[in-house]
């Protein structure tokens, strides 16, 4: 079996610089603070948009760097995209029902 002399050069065992991890951590902490503060601003329907947007940015940072997705094979990326796709299917097709329940239930005559 092949033993890599220097595992550090192997693209799948990419060693991320500690500084990068720490800056990701700092960004996550800042975003947490922002999301709490933003929730106190009265933005109407945009409160949830902002909250989810920040959560998604945070999630993306975690997945890309902490979970090494950025340094992983394309297949892993495909798996992540597939899961998001099927979640989207579940949510959106379920909501086709709930969002249109109150629509016209009378014949047009």
């Amino acid at each position, binding site marked *: 079996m092949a033993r890599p002399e220097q595992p550090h050069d192997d693209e799948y065992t990419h060693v991320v610089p500690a500084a990068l991890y720490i800056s990701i951590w700092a960004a996550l902490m800042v975003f947490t603070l922002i999301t709490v503060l933003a929730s106190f601003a009265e933005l109407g329907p945009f409160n949830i948009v902002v909250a989810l947007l920040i959560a998604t940015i945070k999630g993306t940072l975690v997945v890309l760097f902490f979970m090494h997705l950025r340094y992983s094979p394309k297949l892993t990326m495909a798996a992540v995209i597939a899961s998001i796709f099927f979640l989207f299917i579940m949510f959106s097709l379920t909501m086709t029902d709930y969002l249109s329940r*109150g629509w016209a*239930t009378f014949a047009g005559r």
Partner: protein
Amino acid sequence: MWKNFPLFPERASALAGQVDGLYFFLVAVSAFFTVLIFVTIFVFAIKYRHENNPHPTPIEGSLPLELTWTLIPLGICMIFFAWGSLIYFQEGRAPRGAMEVYGVGKQWMWKFEHATGQREINQLHVPIGRDVKMIMSSQDVIHSFFVPAFRIKADVLPGRYTTTWFHPTKEGTYHLFCAEYCGTQHSGMIGEVVVMDPSAYQAWLTANATTGSLSATGQQMFTQMGCETCHRSDTQGRGPNLAGIFGKQVTLDDGRTVIADENYIRESILNPATKVVAGFKPIMPTYQGQMSEENLAALVEYIKSLAQPQPGSQSAAMMQ
């Protein structure tokens, strides 16, 4: 056992013919493809059997053929889709002016209440030649109102109304089944729909007449429960004026709009704060758990009757 052996359900509503038409078309197309596949397999199996054809000819496939048997079935399916959807939208949306019957499913019986006040259990009498709209809810689990002769079915849910309608075209007595499994006596939750000619129906109504129509009962309750102190017949009330509200679009306090159908009225009685009409405060008390399905139906029917041009025209229409 051999005496009574039908192979096709009776056809007793205006819609039944349409459903059967599409059904026969589907059967014909399916039969065609099934026979095609069976015959092709049979012919290939015999013609190219090993003894006959020891050396197979290598064939990779054929793009034109693949496209043919992708696109033709797709085209046929789109016909099915369009045709089926047209029928579904007729089934699902009752014409305005239909006569209305409230139905309640419970383990394991059907209760019906006519707009004119007659009540019956596991039997439903309707006149021939009129649109009949069923407004149904359940007291416990999910049931399903199924009359094969009319080709209609609608699940009956606890906590809300579901509706369906039919237009009987043939006198007779037809099966009424509960089609959604509902517990021990599910198969005993059956009844019959009796389609009568209008004069016989009128006689039946008279023979079974009760003190008041459903909306009259509702009106009494409306007064007794003090609803009119807020829901006044002018614009000065603390609640919206309910005259003419049924079937109209209503703007809510958060900007959404809903159509004031039976479900909206029901919800507004039981959970008034959920969808408050714009310009009013959420001050109405809840009637959750304080009202039987029957009383609820009476109130809903009364509020609907306020939308009629002249109150009482419902029974007038019925006399025709």
